[in-house]
């Protein structure tokens, strides 16, 4: 069996043999969370303020959300270690390849630079 936490950590294990009279039990130990900080800017170096989200699991929309400030700085104080994907949730800005992927180490702080581009094509409106 495997499990994912709301912070995006994964762990795997096995149940004790279970019978209808004896429940199977599994105790999963997850590594402590990490911290992700960074700056969002354009390819020209201009800081960008937008909403960012992390994908916790393949079957969910990005869940942990933050916004970068006017200087482009953002911080996820508590995220699961391992591979994390960061998405732009602002329809005016996109990240190359849709998301930026980072390896996050348990108990450490990782600092990243995220490059975004204006997203102007294909906009629709309801009036």
């Amino acid at each position, binding site marked *: 069996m495997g499990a994912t936490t709301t912070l995006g950590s994964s762990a795997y294990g096995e149940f004790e043999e279970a019978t209808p009279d004896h*429940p199977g039990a599994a105790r999963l130990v997850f590594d402590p969370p990490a911290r992700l900080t960074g700056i969002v800017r354009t390819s020209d170096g201009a800081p960008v303020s937008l909403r960012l989200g992390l994908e916790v699991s393949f079957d969910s929309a990005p869940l942990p959300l933050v916004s970068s400030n006017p200087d482009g700085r953002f911080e996820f104080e508590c995220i699961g270690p391992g591979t994390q994907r960061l998405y732009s949730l602002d329809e005016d800005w996109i990240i190359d390849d849709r998301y930026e992927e980072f390896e996050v180490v348990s108990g450490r702080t990782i600092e990243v630079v995220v490059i975004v581009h204006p997203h102007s094509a294909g906009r629709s409106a309801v009036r």
Partner: protein
Amino acid sequence: MVGAEIHTAPGKVVAPHADHARRAPVAVTDARGEYACRSLPPGLITLGASALGRADGVLPTVELRSDSANVVDFTLAPERDLRLRVTSEGRGLPGARLEPLGESYDLNPWKGQRQYLAFWRGPTVADDQGWLNVHGVDASFQGDMRVHAHGFQAQLVSLATSPDELALAPVTWLEVAATSREGGPPPELYRVAVRDTTREPSWCGNCDENRFANLWRDSPAVELLAPNHWRIAWNGLGCFVE
């Protein structure tokens, strides 16, 4: 028929839905068996009728017109006498439920079975002795129905015969507890994937990789003991690996 209840649902009813089951009838027939309803909007609508001792009648979708009176008559056949006791080890299971098929999951292996309950019928719940008294089923119905109870495996029972008892097997409980390695705050579980390794592997390795039951905190098989501690009813409703 006196006191027959008229039910409606907008558009075409593809499958029963909990929203339909909560609705009161839009009209009740009078001493002459007639009803009138002046509050329905024009357009496509599904109409049905139920009465004591009669099989539910659901008509094909009709289009109501606003520029003239709409006359919709029903003829209801006798219902099947359907009384069934749900047990485990000889004891009745109070609260066992019989639900319209198709209301559960996309992964429901019984999806596609013929519906046997009309769209306004909610689940039938067993009484203190485990008896299910099912009303509205047509006498000619020969299909299957699904029964489940908390802590027991769901089961289909065929109405091709006349069963008077259905024994449910208990589920196998699994408990998952999550902790943090260095004594930090306990993590909150988001998803748990369980695989039955007691089964024979298939010839296709990729198929084996897909043979997981994926569970979330709101899955019917999950009891939330704590955010980091789940109790899972393995082989319960919605928790199985084909």
